[in-house]
């Protein structure tokens, strides 16, 4: 996720290699970052890396796995001041945890991004900590908008965001693969079926954003209801309604609702 964000920031030019530093434990990850041109690469956060990052940066992104967070926060706490803006993308780590660990005056933000940030088409939501200023919120918005769509939410909504946009890509990959399988079953070569399936999904999603295609805008204006779009393309006794009938008979809508709900519930379990 951290790499996806870095690559996204560089691609959209909201930052540059010279203005980004990273602390990573893995040598392989260090090599990968060197290859993107990141100049300042520090070692393990718990082994001096945190201090170096805090000295280099005014905005610190915490992209470690949730289970490593306690240690990382402990190592960072002595070096972080009220001059820093700390942004955590670690799932399930609450603002309260972050604020208690880092010190009461520290400005923290909690983000749930998703992996398509890598291709500048991410979906992120963020919740602001109690010391965060309006300027901080603007910075967060600027960073996240550079890699896709972002929106401010209440902290208690972040579990739902996790279930939907955080975990959502996996559901979409499953669906694209299944559609391609359907195409192969109907006689198409795999490569053609996959290309058509993926492009169809991209195109359909773009249509939901409406004519201005502004998928990176945080305004819902101009969006078209998916049900309306579905009605428009399902002509009487046509091929589309035949396909839809299969999906409805199989309870696909319910399956997606349960997928999002269960994942959101799991996020809540992990976080507590």
């Amino acid at each position, binding site marked *: 996720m951290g790499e996806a964000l870095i690559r996204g920031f560089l691609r959209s030019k909201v930052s540059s290699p010279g203005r980004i530093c990273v602390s990573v434990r893995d040598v392989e990850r260090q090599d990968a970052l060197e290859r993107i041109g990141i100049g300042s690469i520090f070692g393990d956060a718990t082994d001096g890396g945190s201090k170096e990052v805090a000295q280099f940066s005014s905005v610190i992104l915490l992209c470690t796995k949730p289970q490593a967070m306690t240690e990382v926060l402990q190592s960072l706490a002595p070096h972080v001041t009220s001059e820093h803006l700390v942004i955590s993308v670690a799932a399930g780590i609450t603002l309260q945890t972050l604020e208690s660990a880092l010190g009461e005056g520290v400005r923290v933000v909690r983000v749930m991004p998703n*992996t*398509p*940030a890598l*291709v500048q088409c*991410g*979906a992120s939501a963020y919740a602001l900590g109690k010391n965060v200023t309006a300027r901080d919120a603007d910075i967060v918005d600027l960073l996240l908008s550079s890699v*896709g*769509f972002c929106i401010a*939410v209440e902290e208690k909504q972040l579990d*739902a965001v996790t*279930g*939907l*946009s*955080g*975990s959502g890509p*996996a*559901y*979409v990959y*499953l*669906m*694209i693969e*299944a*559609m391609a*399988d*359907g195409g192969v079953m109907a006689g*198409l070569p795999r490569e*053609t079926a*996959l*290309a*058509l399936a*993926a*492009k*169809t*999904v*991209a*195109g*359909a*999603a773009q*249509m*939901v*954003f409406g004519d201005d295609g502004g998928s990176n805008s945080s305004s819902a204006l101009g969006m078209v209801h*998916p049900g309306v*779009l*579905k009605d*428009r393309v399902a002509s009487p006794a046509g*091929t*589309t309604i*035949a*396909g*839809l009938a*299969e*999906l409805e008979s*199989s309870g696909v809508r319910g399956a*997606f*609702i*349960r997928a999002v709900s*269960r*994942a959101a*519930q*799991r996020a809540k379990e992990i976080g507590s």
Partner: protein
Amino acid sequence: MADKRIGFIGAGQMAEALARGFINKGVCKAEHMWATDPVDERKEVFRSFGTNPVDGNIEVVTSSDVIFIAVKPQYVSVVLREVRPHLEDRHTIVSIAAGITLQSLKDAAGDGIRLVRVMPNTPCLVGETAAAMCLGGKADDSDAQLVQRLFDSVGKIYRVDEKLLSAVTGLSGSGPAYIFLMIEALADGGVRSGLPRDIANQLAAQTVLGSAKMVLQTGKHCGALKDMTCSPAGTTIAGIHELEKAGTRAAFMNAVYAATQRADELAKSG
């Protein structure tokens, strides 16, 4: 390509999307486009973005090199028979009418004509079509390249044998509706979990768009991409489990297959 003139017989929404796409991506200038439609309003729309609307099908044909037949399927034959005496070797006929075979195009347009049959899909309206084409009559590789170049400006197009066009219909033709259903259901899941509807809608649509772009741009296998996002005992694998329990994969395969079969039925009866 720069010197090819493009004509549209039928100036509806699809034709407009194609014309605007060609102009925006610079594959054809507006002043090198002609169009006709029985409805005056549609001609005015085409005039408004700089093309040349005219009053008859024949004038479109005599003014153009590449002619899009963009009328409803039931009128394709009538239109081609009307313009048949004016068709020359330079002409490439591109039909986007669903279910109208190369044979019936040939029957109407005559022998020795370059024929291309294209199955686009609705996202053509937003410049993101997933389309397929097949060649007939005297059409050759240069026609295929030309049509490819044109459609690359409004999405992606793949060449297939005509017998596979029903499958293309079932997959990319009808596919957008399956995705609209999924986006609504994902948003419902978000609302079920506490998100306001408008936020759920935006996150759902953007998640679907971004994930498709990951497949298209990284070239990684869908299964590999799925594996990469499923951390041990995490939220994602819990969601995936629900989809697998419900037989979601089979449902989508069935949808594509059922739509393909319906396309075959329609082709036989049409």
